[in-house]
């Protein structure tokens, strides 16, 4: 947990170091199952952002005296109430057909691990502004991964990005399937870890060189 003594939180921690899809695989299901094109991935990302932020904010108001088991159940119930206006909004923005095509994965967002486990173990241990900053990092990390996976699957499977044709010498329709999603997310996670660790090593090497020079 990257947190200094003053209780400050690094936004990049949730985006890179603890990315929910590419680093820990904490919530890869909707990305694998529903983000089969750019539009679907935007539907999932927007719903995830609104449901998670609003639920965490409201759940923070619950008294700590409530028993843990009941509190967890209340978190899920609050998320499922927030789901209702979020779906109405998404129907207006993206259209009912698009939202219906990913409805199974939208519904399961109410039990996402940020709400069900990270609230208790991490977010609620901080002050309110730091809590929202921390959640924002995790949400941006998930949204970016979801949109990148959706865009890649759109390009590889249909040679299109939204309605723009991307001419590629091959087309792989299997990328739209669940197994295609698993394999793509696995490969992306491996590459992401490789690049991230390499960047970390390079930074620590340059820092030690600077110290030697001083």
């Amino acid at each position, binding site marked *: 947990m990257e947190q200094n003594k003053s209780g400050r939180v690094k936004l990049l921690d949730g985006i890179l170091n603890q990315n929910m899809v590419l*680093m*820990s*695989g*904490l*919530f*890869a*299901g*909707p990305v*694998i*199952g529903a983000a089969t094109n750019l539009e679907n991935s935007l539907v999932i990302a927007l719903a995830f952002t609104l449901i998670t932020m609003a639920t965490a904010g409201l759940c923070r108001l619950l008294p700590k005296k409530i028993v*843990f*088991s*009941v509190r*967890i*159940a209340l978190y*899920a*119930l609050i*998320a*499922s*109430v927030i*789901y*209702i206006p979020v*779906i*109405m909004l998404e129907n207006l923005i993206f259209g009912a057909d698009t939202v219906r095509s990913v409805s*199974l994965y939208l*519904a*399961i967002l*109410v*039990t996402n*691990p940020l709400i*069900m*486990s990270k609230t208790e173990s991490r977010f609620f241990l901080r002050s309110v502004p730091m809590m929202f900053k921390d959640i924002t990092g995790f949400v941006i990390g998930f949204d970016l991964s979801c949109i990148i996976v959706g865009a890649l699957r759109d390009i590889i499977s249909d040679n299109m990005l939204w309605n723009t044709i991307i001419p590629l010498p091959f087309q792989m329709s299997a990328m739209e*399937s*669940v*197994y*295609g*999603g*698993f*394999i793509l*997310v*696995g*490969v992306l*996670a*491996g*590459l992401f*870890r*490789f690049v991230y*660790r390499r960047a970390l090593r390079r930074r620590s090497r340059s820092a030690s060189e600077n110290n030697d020079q001083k």
Partner: protein
Amino acid sequence: METIFSRFLAAALLGIFIENAAFERALGVNVLLYAARKRENLIGIFTGVVYVTTISSALTCLTDRYFSAWEYYNILIPFIYIFIVSAVYILTQMLVWMFFPNILKRVKKYVHLSVFNCAVLGALFIQSRIGGTFASYIGYGLGTGLGFLLAGYLLYAAEDRLNSENVPESFRGMPITMIYIGVISLALSAFWGKH
């Protein structure tokens, strides 16, 4: 009686193999990754999943039957299902606390993970879409839990190899596990002739 049993069995087999929550829908991947680390977690978590999906499926059958004609039912489904799952979770915990307090102490740290996860809620949604009789609801609930257990066992069995030094460092752990699940999912899809 024969028809009830055949419907129950057909729905259970559907949940275990053809519509496997993990391999065919990518539901509950985080729980799978967590549970596959230790044998104790595996047994505890999947017992919880099998129990909750089976009992909740029986209750959601009743709500689907009596309220599905209602105009706003579809948008209220997550709330209704979460309410049912929460009621099952809290009542069961109270009973276990009264009669087997030691067991509750042992499983307390992960019991909520096995109840409030995508696989449980996803199974209830899929069964709601498929519809059917009371027997098929219970069969599908039980089948989903057992299918999830099967997926967990396959991951647990391969855990050592997936984390071995033969795998490149960046791919060790979660990335190679995802690819492994993808390959099993591909094999199952080909086996069942899905396109």
